[in-house]
């Protein structure tokens, strides 16, 4: 268990330049959703920033936004998750070495390493404490949260900075379209539910969270627990797993007020979410978020931002609602995310407003 004491997030929504919670929803008709980036000079020395990749700037800026909101100056641990790291830098090198193998510029190589953001944040803060990076598809962010929760349990930390960063490029979109991951044509994000074709709407984002063992004046909610389930040859059944996971945290399915689903517009994947919510949580309201940020390996970071804000503000904006059911109270939210029915993950968040 940990308290979410600060959030910094750069996304395709106005999350970096405004503290209002989804008051001005961005509508796009696009191949993929792109982040609205802030003016970086507030966060990074322009001299340094010129050499940094876009992903690195997004990571550092969202980490700094998060730190500022939490009031914590030095975290006890920095842990990040990224599915693909810096796609742009990797493509730069691939482009170079497939043409001409010589005189490679080392900067993209250095920045293409997956732990670049977690170590850059540490360098900027001069933070010598525990530092690690997870790179396992939709388990990346969840593994990072689990690591942090264990740091608190072990009493090796009183807080940890948890971050997610992933980016999309047109080039990478075109490559991964070949394996059926994405929609083949531009779609409108706010009518994503009605498209009913295979493939998701791609997106990207950077989100950092300051998690503390203690509540603070900036607390959003409590991160109660997190679980990753690897579906080995179809052996995983959420109906078998969930009751035990909830019970471990003192909850029954009826206690869940909102199930926040990773529905991404892919007609071959979305039924798994709907079946899950209808069967296991018939009383809960259903909500979604990927039409606002797009699909990427660490999209659960945007999901956690959404859930934390619902609980803090005690309001579930209309744009998030998947079902007509109105939650009677806003206390417990379960985020459920899966990738290809192989990587299933659950994040449990509890309001602490009383």
């Amino acid at each position, binding site marked *: 268990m940990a308290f979410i004491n600060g959030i910094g997030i750069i996304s395709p929504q106005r999350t970096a330049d405004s503290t209002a919670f989804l008051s001005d929803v961005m509508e796009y008709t696009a191949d993929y959703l792109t982040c609205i980036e802030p003016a970086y000079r507030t966060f990074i020395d322009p001299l340094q920033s010129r050499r940094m990749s876009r992903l690195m700037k997004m990571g550092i800026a969202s980490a700094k936004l998060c730190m500022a909101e939490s009031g914590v100056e030095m975290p006890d641990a*920095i842990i990040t998750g990224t599915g693909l790291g810096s796609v742009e830098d990797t493509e730069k090198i691939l482009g170079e070495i497939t043409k001409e193998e010589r005189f490679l510029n080392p900067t993209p190589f250095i920045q293409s*390493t997956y732990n*670049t953001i977690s170590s850059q944040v540490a360098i900027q803060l001069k933070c010598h404490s525990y*530092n690690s990076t997870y*790179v*396992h598809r939709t388990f990346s962010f969840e*593994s990072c949260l689990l690591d942090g929760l*264990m740091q608190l349990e072990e009493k090796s930390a009183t807080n940890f900075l948890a971050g997610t960063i992933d980016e999309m490029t047109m080039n990478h979109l075109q490559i991964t379209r070949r394996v059926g991951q994405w929609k083949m044509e531009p779609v409108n994000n706010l009518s994503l539910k009605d498209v009913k074709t295979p493939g998701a709407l791609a997106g990207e984002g950077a989100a950092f969270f300051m998690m503390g063992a203690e509540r603070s004046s900036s607390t959003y909610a409590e991160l109660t627990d997190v679980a990753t389930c690897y579906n080995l040859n179809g052996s995983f059944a959420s109906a078998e797993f969930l009751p035990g996971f909830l019970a471990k945290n003192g909850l029954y399915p009826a206690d869940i007020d909102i199930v926040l689903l990773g529905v991404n517009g892919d007609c071959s994947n979305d039924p798994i979410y709907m079946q899950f919510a209808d069967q296991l949580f018939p009383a809960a309201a259903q909500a979604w978020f990927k039409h606002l940020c797009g699909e990427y390996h660490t999209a659960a970071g945007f999901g956690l931002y959404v859930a934390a804000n619902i609980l803090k503000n005690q309001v579930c904006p209309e744009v998030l609602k998947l079902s007509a059911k109105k939650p009677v109270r806003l206390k417990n939210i379960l985020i459920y995310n899966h990738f290809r029915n192989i990587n299933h993950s659950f994040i449990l968040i509890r309001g602490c407003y009383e």
Partner: protein
Amino acid sequence: MPQRIFITGYGIISSIGHNSGENLSSLLQSRPGLGRIRHVDTLLKDELLVGEVSCTHDELISLAGIDAADGYSRNALLGIIAAREAFAHGGLDKHHDLKTGLISATTVGGMDRSERYYLDFLSNNSRNAYIDSYDCADSTEKIARLLGIHDFVTTISTACSSAANAIMLGARMIRSGRLDRVLAGGCESLTKFHLNGFNALKILDKEPCKPFDQHRAGINLGEGAAYLVLESESGLAVTGNTPICELAGWGNACEAFHQTASSPDGIGAYLAMNAALSMSGLEPAAIDYVNAHGTGTDNNDVSEGRALERLFSKNMPRVSSTKPFTGHTTSCAGSIEAILSVLCLEHQVIWPNLNFKEQMHELSFSPVEELLTTIPVNVVMSNSFGFGGNDTSLIFRKVNNNNDTSSPAPLLLRE
């Protein structure tokens, strides 16, 4: 009392052998695995010296025991071979009631195939099977699927300390009560991508590397895979496994200094080693041998050397780098060198730091030059440091098993 963590199995493939027996034999005979690049299509082929696994892609497929091979990167194949050996050694095929996890580490992922087929990725559908095997999770999931591990699966990437962090996470997962046993380690294949990347950073030695030598000139890159079986004390009661040794301490710290360079005083290295030592409850004098990160770069060896001097001062243990044997296997170095450290406890030996001639002017100590076989080895420290200053140190301790006659296992001096 927190659970003690024991090592009950391991598996390794590297340039000095395709399994742990072959690796041991090469080490005992001071036979390094460095040579010219044969399996990567690169202009650097005749220029660099590397620690390459001798097998072709097809030979690896057959060693890995795979039928349908489309979509397998070299990285995944190396991983499967080492993971299978560890899995069998630790008896992970039995006791399915125990909660078992797989924590793997890599940075190159499926890059060896991606760089080969990148132009196809961009223009046609002929290599689609390799698009999904590009990322870091792919090799981990292939290993998990083949071995039937599902209670916990994840992948770590902290550059050259990745596999050490995988071992550390495994130990913490067991100690927290979330898992009973863990297959932890990493895999990393040579690629044109990072051969060129390191070459552009001008930190590769074209001759066999000379860690801790005054005239050291850089790294020889290497490849391989290595996994250890970590088991809880209570798990041992179920499996009846005899522990090979104990993982007595671990520490992770960040240099927070520079993206690729180490600080001159080795603050990150010192903090990581000190954390591991204090967790083990041991005095500095109890460490018999340090398997150093020792890359052979100008920068690392000064930084690590100074950190060692600060931590151990008058009690400097024997130190060597085994990278002149295997090459620097980057993300996999942490688990390869963890196994090499475990072998020291098992066989009561200390590995030599090959190619050493002249003590560094900045340091007050020299590394071990010859294979040592007559010294008691009870505690070994293994260091792994990475780009971004991600530094991790592990401590392995000999255990006195009840049925142990306290004589070390005989040396297997095989040809």
